[in-house]
């Protein structure tokens, strides 16, 4: 468990930003989870690097959401005080939606 927590992966955006993310947070996305599945052993799992075809600003928001998701994973809905939608800039909303669909976030 502790090892998994310390495990980090690299997420790379299409415009060249890289994010070092805890694997625990990354695999909150279904797509990233299969991508990093060590048993299936795709290239990404081997290199621990995922190239995501999204702009850095979108990817950043996605990671932020994944962290939010992990943080409140075990909470009841009524106990969650902050609303993630408050943090979304309408300008990127549609693009973010597409990314979410792709990443099963």
């Amino acid at each position: 468990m502790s090892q998994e927590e310390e495990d980090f992966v690299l997420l790379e955006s299409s415009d060249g930003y890289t994010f070092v993310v805890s694997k625990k947070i990354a695999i909150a996305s279904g797509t990233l989870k299969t991508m990093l599945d060590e048993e299936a052993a795709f290239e990404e799992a081997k290199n621990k690097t995922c190239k995501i075809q999204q702009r850095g600003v979108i990817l950043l928001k996605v990671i932020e959401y994944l962290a939010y998701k992990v943080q409140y994973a075990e909470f009841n809905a009524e106990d969650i005080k902050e609303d993630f939608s408050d943090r979304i800039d309408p300008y990127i909303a549609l693009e973010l939606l597409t990314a979410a669909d792709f990443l099963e976030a």
Partner: protein
Amino acid sequence: MAMSMGAARRGKPKIRPPKRPTSETPIKDTWSKLAHAIREIQNHNASKLSYEEHYRYGYNMVLHKHGDQLYNGVKALISEHLDRLAEEKIVPTFPRSGGTRGAGKLGGGAEAIERALEGDRFLKAIKSAWEDHTGSMRKIRDILKYMDKGYSTANGLPLIYDVGLTLFLSHIIRSSKHPIHTHLISTLLSQVQLERDGETITRSTVRECTDILLRLNVPEREGGKTVYVTDFEPEFLRRSAEFYGLEAVEELDKNDAAQYLRRVERRLAEEADRTVHYLSTTTHPALQELLIANLLTPHLQSVLDMPGSGLVTMLDSDRLPDLRRLYTLYLKVPKDEGKTALRTALRADIEERGKAVNEGTIERNDAGPSTATIGQDDEDDPKGKGKAKSSSTSASPISNAINSALRWVQDVLDLKDKFDGILETAFMGDKQVQVSINEAFQSFINANPRAPEYLSLFIDENLKKGTKARSDIEIESALEKTIVLFRFLSDKDKFERYYKNHLARRLLYARSASDDSEKQMVTKLKMEMGFQFTQKLEGMFTDMRLSNESANSFRNYQNRHGTISIDLSVNVLTASYWPQPIVATSTCTFPSALQPAMETFQKYYDSRHSGRRLTWQGNLGTADVRVRFKNRSHDLNLSTHALVVLLLFEDSKAGDSLSYSEIKSSTDLPDADLIRTLQSLACAKFRVLSKIPKGRDVNPSDKFEFNESFTSPLARIKIMQVASKVESVKEREETQEMVDEERKHQVEACIVRIMKDRKTMSHNDLISEVAHQLSSRFSPSMSLIKKRIEGLIDREYLERTNDMGSYRYLA
């Protein structure tokens, strides 16, 4: 919501639409890249592929409405790959032996090992193909995750992984190009067969292959069950049935019953183990059922009857583990068939043994010199009762008869012990089996007409003084067992009669070993049969107690009214409690020497009780008397009758003799009693009288004189009254008559009791009610009840009503 709110707040409604991802790549290229990737996955090169990239291809194809192309394309790729797998990996490993093979044995030794290895290789190939396939399918599923989500589910198609399974079934297991299916099933079967024949096979391989079959489902239209259930199991069961059907016949021929059962047990365990380890546990019930149906059900009887090793032999030699195995196996046979067969056989066997016991006694009787014709002599035989056990030197017919009675009971008890033990340890105390055992005992015990007498004799032997030194506990347990046998008796009234006789003798001749044991026995009988049954027995005890108590008061009475010359102790018996032969009035003229004492007691008794009549019974008492012979005096203990006879010689001189008829006229004893008395005095061990001429039998022409020259090393001599213990044929007939007579009364009483209650009753109801009420004492015959009804109608207790077959009670 959040977005629109945000937009409204900032007042900047212009939102840039996201660019459609990768619309720049043409679909055709996308597909060819994907197809390439899938092939790479199938060739185990997944690590060179970018998941993100191919996921995106799949994602785009679905998003751009090319889902069907993708779906079918992938299907085609998988099929192609599977065909190649079959071709390259599986076909070369086909076992030589081919797919069609009977259930017969597959040759042994090296060939069998070879075959096992071949089969194993083939199964391993199937297994590796399966693993290869499922491995790549997992990756393909991962890559095409979005297709499953966005296309397959949306269009009601199976997920791609399941498609892979279906394709594996149609392209490998049920391949139309290669006979994989036949090979697979027959190899599995032959692996099982090899193991059944004692070869070693690699169970894990078989397990993995059956797992594959269990994992795969046949198409819906074929029932949708697993391939294991549809393709393998029926064939497997058929082969097994065939195999075990043959094996049963073969093994029955080769082995004895115990070995056969052991084998069956082992087979059952093996097959159970098999289903757990490399078949499916769902097969277990069917397989066990099949084994039982083939190995046991058709052969239940032949195993039981197997000469030299069947049930009889197992019982003979107390082979408890074998019997237990037999029982547990037979219990498994459906519809209780096994148990029923076992019970029937057991019952027949016990009855056979019981018959042997019954015949054993009859034979032993016949072997002795005594039969019906010499019956009379039996009684007169000088050997006393108490000596029956010890008189081995000159085994007299009586002691023979007693011995055979005792032996019969002991044999029955031994038999009972044996079967109780077997029931407990081998048949787990099964109640139904117990019922059968009891029925068998009941049937053979009642087949012996003398059972009630023998049983009572056995009890007599145990309660009597001086037979064997036994501890109370032993006696207690012996009595406990006899009660068990008593339960089996149907003629309980007959037993009561004998028991009363024996008890009377024990009490009057003070032969009871212990009052406690006697009372315990009566209590036991009371518990079995209720108050009525033992009422008279208890009356007998009361008489004895009262007589003892009155002895003291009689002594006091003598102090006041003048003493008498002899020490007299009297047992006053209530005639109705005691058995008829004992209290039957017998004539006897008591000599003058005794008269005063008798009169004194008569007076004493009349003074205490009025309206009671005393009758003196000389045949029941004993007397102690000192007799002077030439050498010395001896104290003789003899019966009252013997004393009466002996007193006739009191004044006689040497050489004086009395003839039989003289003795008879002065004593007035009945012939039978007199002969017996004379025999005990003149022909037995201690001959205080001499008979002229000498001989064992007493004839009316004989003369007797006092034997002055009698010598004996003992100062005190007990002269036994000869009395038969086992009944002679004639006596037995008499007893039977008396029993029959009493039964008549009981039946009548019972009829009246019932009719008084019911007033009117139909013939059949009445008969069954009577039979039921009397069943605890004896089983009345139909004709007996009918006759009694007639009798009661004649005496106007009952009348026939107008409708046929009914009776009315006339108050």
